[in-house]
Structure formats: C-alpha cells, structure tokens
C-alpha cells in the first residue's frame, strides 16, 4: 500500500544539538503507528519534524509523495490535511471549546456561521463533549481538554491524526477511554494515526506498528508490532522497554 507519510534519512535537532540522525520510516494509509522510546529519546522532536514545526538539517518528510518543505504551499497543503492533538490539549484559552473547534473550520471552509456551529457541535459530540461546548478550557478537566483538542484536530476530517503523549497526566480509566476513542476514529473513519507515547498499555491497545527510538544512537533501534518487539527482539534496550509490561502483567497475575 502507498505510504501517506514518509521520512527519509532525516537528521536534525534543536539549535545546534543533534537529536535525531538517519531516521527513515513510512506510514501507510489507515495504519496506527506508535513512536515510542524512553524520555529524552527524541519522540516529541520527531513529531515536530513530522508536523513541519522544525526543518530537518538533512533528509525529507514526505506527505503523499510531496516534500513538505519543498515550498510554503506544500507545507500549508499538508497542514490542512492533518490534525494534531498536543500533550496539553493546546486549546486557545480565550475561546470556548466550541469556538476552538470552529477555528480551523472558519479558516478553511466557506460555510455559514450556523453550519460552522453544527459541524463543531457534531465533532464535540463525537468526543462526548457536546454538553461542555460553551465552557472555556480552564473550566474543564485535563482529559476533557485533550478530547476537545481531538475534536478540533478532527474538525476538517483529516487524513492523518497526530497525537503527542495523549495519556500524559490522565488517570488509567480516562486514558483507556481516550485509547478506545482513537481506535474508533481509526476503524470507523479510516484515519491514519501517528501517536507518540511511552505508555505501554496504549501501545498494545491501539498500535498496528511501533517505531522505537533511542537517545544513544539518535535514531531508530526497532520497528515492528508491539507483540513482536516484546517477544522476539534481540535488542536488550527493546526488551528492557517492553519487559516492564511483562513484569507488570506477572505482578497482576
């Protein structure tokens, strides 16, 4: 199947600090790809490169075979076709949840105010927040902020949805609900999903494939399904990462 998103030999970092080097992988349509690794391994930095918030020093990020940095138009075009939920939700604090969801709709569609509200309500309803539409971000819980962020990310029916640490700061139940919601969006709408996380429960629950990063090599040390990496990896670092899950399961048993 044709990749919707490709990374080719990417090298880059912050200012002069090299974080990632020689990164190459592809994401196929409808796939849920998890980018995992220990804290500080460059997961969020890779997300910044995928989203066009950082320009690679070397290599390319391709969205549907077009380099997102080839022209400002290419980057803009790609950005209208994907949605992002950030770790903190990143909702604009001076707008209500509904107004936050309306924001991208207003910018990129030419529909009436009433239609904007209807679409935005339906997106909030998808994430179970229609009743809190008129609340401001600071008036709702962290989990609700993330779900509202997801509703905003879904506003334009994106082809790719990016999630940066969706479970961070959430209790296991809320985190599990969010995982289910992500899986539902993926299966019902066929949306390609790229998720950055270090939560093993989420990785096993929703990912089709896993790309594992490591800070020592500034790059990828393993690619495969979560079960493959857990059971068959010969790399000590991979086993140590996924071993936490086995240990937890054994303790649970």
């Amino acid at each position, binding site marked *: 199947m044709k990749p919707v998103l490709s990374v080719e030999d990417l090298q880059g970092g912050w200012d002069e600090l090299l974080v990632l080097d020689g990164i190459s992988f592809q994401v196929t349509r409808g796939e849920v790809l998890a980018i995992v690794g220990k804290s500080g391994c460059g997961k969020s930095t890779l997300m910044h490169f995928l*989203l066009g*918030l950082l320009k690679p020093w070397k290599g390319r990020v391709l969205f549907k075979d077009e380099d997102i940095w080839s022209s400002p138009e290419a980057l*803009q075009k790609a*950005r*209208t076709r994907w949605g992002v939920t950030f770790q903190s939700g990143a909702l604009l604090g001076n707008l209500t949840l509904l107004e936050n969801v309306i*924001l991208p709709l207003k910018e990129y569609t030419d529909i009436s105010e009433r239609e904007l509200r209807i679409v935005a309500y339906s997106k909030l309803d998808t994430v179970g927040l229609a009743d809190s539409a008129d609340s401001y971000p600071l008036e709702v819980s962290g989990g609700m902020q993330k779900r509202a962020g997801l509703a905003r990310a879904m506003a334009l029916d994106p082809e790719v949805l*990016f999630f940066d640490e969706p479970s961070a700061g959430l209790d296991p139940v809320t985190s599990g609900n969010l995982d289910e919601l992500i899986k539902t969006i993926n299966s019902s709408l066929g949306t390609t999903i790229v998720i950055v996380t270090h939560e093993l429960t989420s990785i096993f629950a929703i990912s089709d494939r896993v790309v594992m990063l490591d800070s020592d090599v500034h790059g990828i040390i393993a690619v495969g399904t979560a079960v493959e990496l857990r059971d068959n990896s010969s790399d000590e670092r991979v086993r140590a990462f996924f071993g936490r899950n086995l240990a937890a399961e054994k303790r649970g048993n």
Partner: protein
Amino acid sequence: MICTSTERDQLVNQEKLTFSGFTLSVHGVLEDYEIDSIRDFIEEYKRSIFNAGKLVLDFSNSPGIDSVAAAVLYGACKQFTRAGVRVRRTGTLPVIENLFETLAGFDSMPEPHKKRMSIRDYFENIGENVYEMGKTLYSLGHFFGDTLYAFMNLVLRPMKVRWSMVLYYMEESGVKAIPIIAILTWLLGLVLGYQAGFQLKELAAETLMPAMLGYIITWEIGPMLTAVLVAGRSGSAYAAEIGTMQVREEVDALRVMGFDVFSYLVTPKMIGLLCVMPFLVLLANFSGIFGGMLAGSLFLGLPPSTFISELGKALIPLDIYWGMLKSFIYAVIIANVGSFMGMRVRGGASAVGKATTAAVVLSIFMVIIADALLSLLFVHIRPGLSL
C-alpha cells in the same frame, strides 16, 4: 532551625541522647527539628570526649534516624576524628549504617573545582554576549519583515483581519491607558512649567514659558512618555500573552492548523496600537500643556489667556502632527518587540517572566533610538529649526 532552651530541655528530658564515660547513646529516632539540641548536647560533652580520646555512638536503642540529624552527628564525629579521637558506632541497624556510609561516601568526593576566570574568558564572554545580541537583533529584523509581509497581505484583504481582536487590543492598550497617561503627563507638565517658569522669571522672561513647554511637550515628552508607558503596559502584556501560549503549545497548534501566526497573533496587536497611539500622544500633549498652564497661572501669575496666546504664537500644526506620526513608529516597535520576545519563549513560567522584562527593556531602548533619529530628521523638516 533555632533551638529554644525549652526544646533542648525536652530532648534531654526525653533522654533521646545520653552520655556516659565515652559512650553517647541514642534512644529513639532523632528528628531534623532537633539538630540544634543535638549540637548543644555534643558541645556540652565535648571536653569529656576529648579527654577520653574515644567516642562510641551507641544506636542499640534507635530504630532509625533522620538524614539531617545523621549529617549533624556525622559532622561532629568527623571533627572528633580529626582531633585524634577514635570514633566508632555500635548497635546500628543496617538502615542507619547505610545512611552513615552514604554520607561518608559523598563526603570523600572532591570539592567541585571553581574555575578562575582568565582575561581571555572575560573577553570571550563579552564576545559571546555581543554575538548573541547580534543574533537577537537579526532575528528581530526577520520578525519585523514577516510581520510587515503579513500586514501588507491583510491590507490587501482587510476582511481577513481579526477585527474583534483589534478592538480588544485597542481597548486594552488604548482606552485603559488613558488615566495613567493623562495623569502622568499632566503632572510632568505642571512640574516642567513651574521649573522652567521659575528660571525664566529670574530673567523677567516668564512669558517664554508657554512656548518652551509647548516645544518640550509636543516634540519629546508627549510622544516619548506615551511610548514608554505603552511599552511598560502593553509590550510586556503582549510578550506574556504569546509567551504563555508558547508554553501551552497553543502557538504550535495554530501553526500546524496552517494559521499564519503573524496574521493571527501579531498584526491585530500592531493594528490596535497603530489606531490608538496617535490619540494617546495627542492626549499626552494636551494634558502636559494643561499642567503647564496651571503652573503658569498658580505660580507665575500667567493668566490662561496669555498662556494660550503665547503657545499659539510658538507652535505650528506640524509640531502636533509630528508627535502623532512618531507614535506610528513607536507602535510598530512596541507591538513587534513584545510579540517577538513572546515567540522566543522556550521552557516554563520563568522564561515568560524573562521575556516580559526583555520586551520592556528592548522596546524602550529601540523607542529612544528611533526618537533620536527622528529628532535629527525633524530639525531639517520643521521651519525655523535649521541651524
């Protein structure tokens, strides 16, 4: 913590520490709030310990010890050892023994070597700072360019301007600044009018005061004070607002949604300031001159009618317009520098604080430089000023 005599008595009364012969026995758990009492207790028996030449710390009746209390005991023992006293512990549980061993392990680590700064380092530091300043100014120039580009795009498509935000910033930066600008410039006009008039009265030339005050207020004080106050009030607010948005990833969210952050965040602030600054300067001019008029009539016996007629003879419309024109440049500087500093925020709350301070300092610095350059230009433009 300072130990009161009552606390010390309690410690002794509770008999957590007892001394007999050369044995210091610990009973129960020594806590961190008891460290002064521990020090006092050891001080009391110091001479006996030195005389005995040995000290046994008996922890047989102690199930544990607070780490701060342990550090105090360890320090005291170290002093005794240095003085030739043989110190040993007895009856210690592994948890206590481990704590003392950990303290000993870290104590044996070499002190961090403080590097002395050489002259070369000193000049390198200066060079680095100058380089960083150059880089900041380069980035600021780039930022100005991007804002100008976004502004020109909006001029061509005015419906794209977020007018609700422009009105919001006009109210926040303009309307709400009226009281402070009016009061301060009025007070300054009063003081300047009085001081100038007092000097001129000595020369029987107090009728020159209105002209002098008019020039000072309309050419410099009005526009400059307005710019400084707006930079302090609004420039810092812009930096804090955008800086907080950076920390909360809101700016990144706007970027990845494909929004032009310059059009969305910076230009509404700039347009808002461009709309209100000239009127704030006008207000500052009137207010300052009114203060001077009051000083003339109260202290110099200069009736308001004479003041106004003398002022009318001296000032020309260009004097007023020039201040208002200068305010456009100040508005661009303040809005851009404030937003630029906000955009540079990386990290947490402290970075936002630094950005607001930097925004005010750099705004005022640049306003003064712009004012100096514009004043040089004004000399050539205004009739009757050429040397």
